[in-house]
Each structure stands twice: as C-alpha cells, then as structure tokens.
C-alpha cells in the first residue's frame, strides 16, 4: 500500500505491507534508525514518537494508519546545524543514559511533556516518564535531566 508520511517536516512516499509497524517503516523504509525498538508490544516505550502532536508507541501503530500524519522522531530534536536540544544536553550532563537503547523514547516522551506543561514538578515528571523503561540508570539521572531542561526553559 502506498502511503505518505511527513517525518520531522519532510514528506516521504513509501510502499508498505499492511503489517509494517510505523516503527519499522521509520527504521527500515526511511532509514531513520533513531527510533529504537525494545519489546515490540507496547510495554517498554523505546519506540515512542509524536504522531500529529501526541505521543504514540510506534510499535503499536501500523504505518498505513499513519498515512498523511505528521510524525516527529528523535532525529528532529537537534537543530539542523547539530546543536543539541536542551533535553539532549541535559540527558548528557545528568547521566540520563548509559546504553542508549531507551533514550529516543525517553527524549520524545519528555519533549512532549515540556511542550504541553512548561514547569512540571518532579512527581509529575516521574509519573509521565513511567511508561518508558530503562534498565541501566535507575531513573534518577533521567528525572534530573528532565527537571533541569524544564528549569532551563526561558533562560537566555
């Protein structure tokens, strides 16, 4: 089936089998391997992307369902000149990652949180990040990073 996906502002035409998940279409058909796959059944959150403004598990959505949708992935976070997004900077500074498998999903979940709630408290950050599993860090660095990125918003 022929579909159109707008990913990080760029339009792509792709031909996909109906069973192709959005995550696999991004990775295999568009070469955007920043979106990671962990469990492939919606539990781990590694594949979280933003679809038409809302976070979604890219492994629980077929690419054909995203036909015509605007998708944002981790590749879209940094500026074109390579300047990292404040969340990426904060994850780096706070040791919010170790192996990096969960990081794209963590970043997209956190990015949506900060886009919709500019000043979440620590409890709110923990609640919102609870759908993303990390097996390296113990989460403290991740929550620190999101808190720091939130606090840094509005600074010159």
């Amino acid at each position, binding site marked *: *089936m022929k579909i159109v996906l707008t990913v990080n502002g760029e339009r792509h035409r792709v031909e996909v*089998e*109906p*069973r192709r*998940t959005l995550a*696999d279409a991004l990775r295999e058909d568009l070469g955007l391997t920043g979106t990671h796959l962990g469990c*492939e*059944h*919606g539990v781990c*959150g590694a594949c*979280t992307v933003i*679809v038409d403004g*809302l*976070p*979604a*598990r890219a*492994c*629980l*959505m*077929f690419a*054909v*369902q995203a036909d015509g949708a605007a998708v944002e992935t981790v590749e879209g976070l940094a500026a074109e000149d390579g300047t990292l997004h404040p969340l990426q900077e904060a994850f780096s500074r706070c040791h919010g990652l170790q192996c990096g498998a969960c990081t794209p999903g963590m970043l997209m*979940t956190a990015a*949506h949180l900060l886009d919709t709630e500019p000043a979440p408290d620590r409890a709110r950050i923990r*609640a*919102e990040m*609870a*759908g993303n599993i990390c097996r390296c860090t113990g989460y403290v660095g991740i929550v620190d990073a999101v808190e720091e990125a939130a606090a840094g918003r509005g600074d010159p």
Partner: protein
Amino acid sequence: MKCPPFSYHRATDVADAVAALGAADGEGKILAGGQSLVPLLALRLARPAVLVDVNRVPGLDGLVVRDGVLHAGALVRHLHLAGQDHHPLAAEAARWIGHTAIRSRGTLAGSLAHADPSAELPAVLRACDGAVHVAGPGGTRRLGADELFVGALQSSLAETEMITGVELPVPDAWGFAEFARRHGDFAIVSVAAARFGDRLRVVVGGVAGVPHLVDPGDLATCDGGLSADRVAILAAAAADDVDPPSDLHGSAGYRRALTEQMTARALTQLAGHRTPEAA
C-alpha cells in the same frame, strides 16, 4: 515479534466497516486504537485475516451529555475521556489506563470490546449500568453492560458486529480505587463505585472473568449516608462476595484482602465526591 500478515481495509463509514467484517467470514477484526489488539498480533496470539481500520470513520469521536447520560462515540480516546468533566468517574478511571502514549491511541469502545476483566472502563460501564450501541449485518442493537461481558476477553459481540457508541449514566457520587504493582500496569484489583439516588453499585475488576457486580444486599441503598463504620461493613461484604482466582500476581486471599481495601477507598471517595450539576 513481527505481526503475522493480514489484509487491511480502511473503512469509510460504519456500514462499510460492518460489510468488511461480513466479507471476512469470521476472520475480521476491528482496528481502533490497537493498544490491546496489536500486542496480541505481535505475540501471535491472534491471527485475523482482515483488519478493518475504523480510525477514519467520521462521527464516532463525540462526547455529549443528555438527560444525565454521557453519550460517547466508539472512537473517544482515553486521553479525551480523562480530560472531560461531564463524567468524573469515567475521567478518573481513564487516567489509570497505561501511559500518555497509550491513552492517546486507545479507545473507549476498544477497551469494552476487548473485555479484559482487569481493565478500568469495563468496570465503569458496569458500575454505571451503561450500555453499548452495536452495528451488525442485521441492523443495530443496544446491549447492557450485564449482557456485554461474557468471560475473560470474551464479549457477546458477534464477529460481524462493531460497537458504535457508549451510554454511561452519570452517577450522583462516585469513587474509583485501583491497586497495581506500578501505575499504568493492569490492575490486580480495581473498584468502581457509583451512587444513583440512594442506589449504590460497586464493581470489582480483576477478581473474575468479568467485572464483578457486588451482590446488592446491604449495598442496595445508602440513604443513611456513608459513615466510616458503614464503609467498613460494606467493604467487608464486598470481600465476602468475590471468589477470586490465584495466579502469579497474587493469591485468592490477597485479592480478597485487596477487594476490601479498594472498596473501602472507593466508598470513602464516593462519600466526598459528588458529580457537579451539569451546566
């Protein structure tokens, strides 16, 4: 794992979806939010030949209150239900479902059709004595909550039928309590409590194949108000009324103890939670 192959039909309206289910000869499944169905496909526990995608069917995502009943379209997402204030019990229950990335896709009718006995919305439908509107090859019908759920993951819907809308009477007062290992996990035990006038309905999830409506008995009326003593008596009665299974998440005794605790919590909440008068 990757999903097994299937053919895909993007339905344009309800009649088209029903026709596609009919043409699939019992091998079709409705694809709405996909938050329960797609994991079943990925784990290859289900192998439908045809998925009928209803996400683009217009007119199924509305919410309106008429005569004290919330009428919700089949495609109302959990995030939408959680954010509305017409039916505070449904809103609170929806907040307990998964995480934002799940609630953004998962649908009200999808959760009801999936009929997971530990899911939140089936318990709410039963606590509110709600109903679903169903479309099938023979026309439409209305199914009460007591008729919809048959067993664990089993509803009385035919393979060629789909839910198009949901009726949820708005209770005068309500409470909802859930215990899970982590927020967002399936409940080990959840309790939805609703009061309509002096009639109290308490439903326990996670203790049977279907959301369990506690035998009225003492619960039937609550004209005397809900003192702490009365809450304790009713919670003990609810625990006596359930006959939960044992599994790796908890023994029968543990679930019975949780039923007492969660019922007490939900009723304590109910005593303080009145649904505001509709504007």
